[in-house]
């Protein structure tokens, strides 16, 4: 117990710094930003939730997962089922069971239930998948994502098929998204200093030694898998309330790769890496988009051609990884002592 509290004392600064950074971004945006810019920041906070959610599993276990956006899909659709007005559901989603058609829950309760549904699904699937490790586990999670995508794209009466479903109330603004991001960062932090989190990290770094010390890697992995599924399910729900439409296509390969890239570019074995990866990549993308629209330089507008933004961001990612193969944070946590950052969760 004493050890735990000293661990807490040594690492809490990371949590505080990360939260302060997020709050600072939100406050500055609120003071200075335009409406479209505010939406960019909201989207970024949701991405923080997603990437930190992936980190809870991937960072702690060392197993790359391609499947986590499946939980986002489950969460977003669950939020749609819980919050769309009954009249609209009868028409657009007639296959839903009656009790679902007739319920319309408050947004926070619905988001919580959406997370639970994703977690439940993860618990069931994870019992099978978590037995695998390495690349086989990665492929299995990808197969899981593909199955979720195919089912949600074709089960027309319950999900509306490949089309978007609408009628989800707009809710997620900058403060909700900030709250979500902070909450997720806290969850991730608490998990990684928990007994299970430490055991899983031990298993990641030294599988044999950890197993010999009585760590049940499969069980710890399952715990991380379920927690991360819950977090991403909630993020999916908030995303639905942010965009007002959900569509299976939005939760497939595109978002899988962008979130994984953010995680790896930031540094996949540290919480700071997950958060900073999102902030840095989102920042660069936004900068390039401004350039694409054109910048006024003493009367002449300088603009880069449309489409160059995507090419540049790809190149920037390659270059960052070339020089920092373990990510911008070098897999370490940010602490008060900026010079000599400590290793994660030591």
């Amino acid at each position: 117990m004493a050890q735990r509290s000293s661990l807490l004392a040594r690492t809490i600064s990371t949590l505080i710094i990360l939260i302060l950074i997020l709050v600072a971004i939100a406050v500055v945006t609120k003071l200075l930003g335009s409406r479209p810019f505010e939406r960019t920041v909201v989207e970024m906070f949701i991405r923080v939730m997603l990437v930190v959610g992936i980190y809870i599993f991937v960072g702690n276990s060392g197993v790359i997962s391609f499947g986590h956006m499946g939980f986002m899909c489950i969460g977003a659709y669950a939020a749609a089922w819980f919050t769309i007005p009954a009249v609209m559901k009868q028409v657009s989603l007639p296959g839903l069971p009656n009790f679902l058609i007739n319920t319309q829950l408050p947004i926070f309760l619905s988001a919580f239930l959406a997370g639970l549904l994703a977690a439940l699904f993860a618990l069931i699937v994870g019992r099978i998948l978590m037995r695998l490790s390495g690349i086989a586990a990665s492929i299995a999670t990808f197969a899981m994502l593909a199955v979720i995508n195919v089912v949600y794209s074709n089960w027309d009466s319950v999900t509306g098929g490949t089309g978007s479903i609408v009628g989800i109330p707009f809710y997620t603004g900058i403060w909700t998204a900030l709250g979500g991001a902070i909450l997720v960062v806290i969850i991730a932090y608490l998990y990684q200093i928990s007994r299970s989190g430490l055991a899983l990290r031990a298993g990641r770094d030294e599988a044999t030694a950890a197993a010999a010390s009585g760590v049940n890697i499969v069980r710890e992995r399952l715990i991380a898998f379920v927690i991360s599924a819950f977090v991403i399910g909630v993020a999916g729900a908030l995303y639905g309330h942010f965009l007002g439409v959900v569509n299976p296509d939005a939760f497939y390969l595109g978002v899988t790769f962008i979130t994984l890239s953010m995680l790896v570019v930031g540094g996949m074995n540290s919480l700071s890496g997950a958060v900073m990866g999102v902030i840095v990549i989102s920042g660069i993308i936004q900068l390039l988009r401004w350039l694409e629209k054109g910048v006024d330089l003493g009367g002449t507008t300088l603009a880069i051609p449309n489409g160059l933004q995507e090419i540049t961001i790809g190149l920037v990612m390659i270059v960052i990884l070339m020089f920092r193969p373990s990510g911008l944070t070098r897999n370490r946590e940010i602490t008060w002592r900026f010079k000599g950052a400590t290793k994660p969760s030591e």
Partner: protein
Amino acid sequence: MSRLKALGLAATFGALISGPALADDIVVGFATAESGFMQAYDKPAQDAALIRIDEINKAGGLLGRQIKVVTADTKTDRAEGAKAGLEVLDKGAELVIVSCDYDFGAPAALAAEAAGKVSFFLCAESIKAGIPGVGPHSFSSSVLAAVQGATMAEWAYNKKNARKFYRLLDTWTVYNKGICDGFDWQLPRLKDAELVGSDTFKNEDASIASQISRIKALPQEPDAIMLCTMMPGAVSAIKQIRAAGIKAPILNGSGVDGSYWLSAVPDLSNFFVPAQGSIYGDDPNPKVNEFNKKYKEVTGGDPSSQYVYPGYVLIDVWSKAVERAKSLDADAVVAELEKMKDEPTLFGPRTFTSEIHHQNKGRYLIIETTNGKPAVVDEWTISEAIPVADLLKQ
């Protein structure tokens, strides 16, 4: 010479977009894709819309005021789409024109709806692009996908004497499903017509060999194959069907209109597409052919498919509604739009009601491709509008 002219007209567009906005100008905002996947589909219709705006401005403007265009790029991304919608609204847009596809256009349209402004989809053909999927101020100027399927079924039944139909659905998009839904709605209304078989595939399938084997296993070749798909998978499917020696007429949605892909299937014949207007220079309405010429002068190329036309139609019907309402007030404009019944446009009549802001019945040209040459062969309007209740169920 035409290149020079094109440059000149392009300059006019440039002025339309970047010229200084006067307080008196009416602002029309395009929240469409200028990059990414949807760009190739948004740009042609947007150019057509700009042509109509230019015509209106040259003729003295709308309510005596000039129309000024502002744009924002959705980057073919849903979240960016919502931002683009806000951006043009912040620039004072009275009308927000959004991406061609319902899924990509909806976020921007929802932003316009929340701001109480009228929004138009460039060419969306889903029932959701309008009241059910956005709200009471949202419209689409194209014709529903279901009407295309229903039109082809009824036309083939009457003019090609087709009785035994086969249905092949690509499950990729709502548009594809929409065509087949319209076909399914129409078929039971045709006496003695029967469905001899049905199958699905995926647009990205590298090979549809097993689907073709199933058609070939039928005791006799069907009278017509209803093919509900779109680019790029359509070309592959058509090519493979013909390569397998199946010669039955193929009925399609408008998504495969255009001659740009025909080189992939040399000497394609017995192939039918519904279109709102002909891009092949043989439209029964000479004004359409004039428009095609104008489009070429402005953009430097012929229209690539009929999906250019809805852009022109939308500015046309919106500006008429504004003139009739004598106001830009969204509710007043919507009320005038909803009074339109068989309103003539260059590309077929348009009807809007308080129940549906889309066309559930429409005049289509039937384009037949023979030996790789498409040409208008007929014109068809389904005998009965598809009821809104049926459309929503699908």
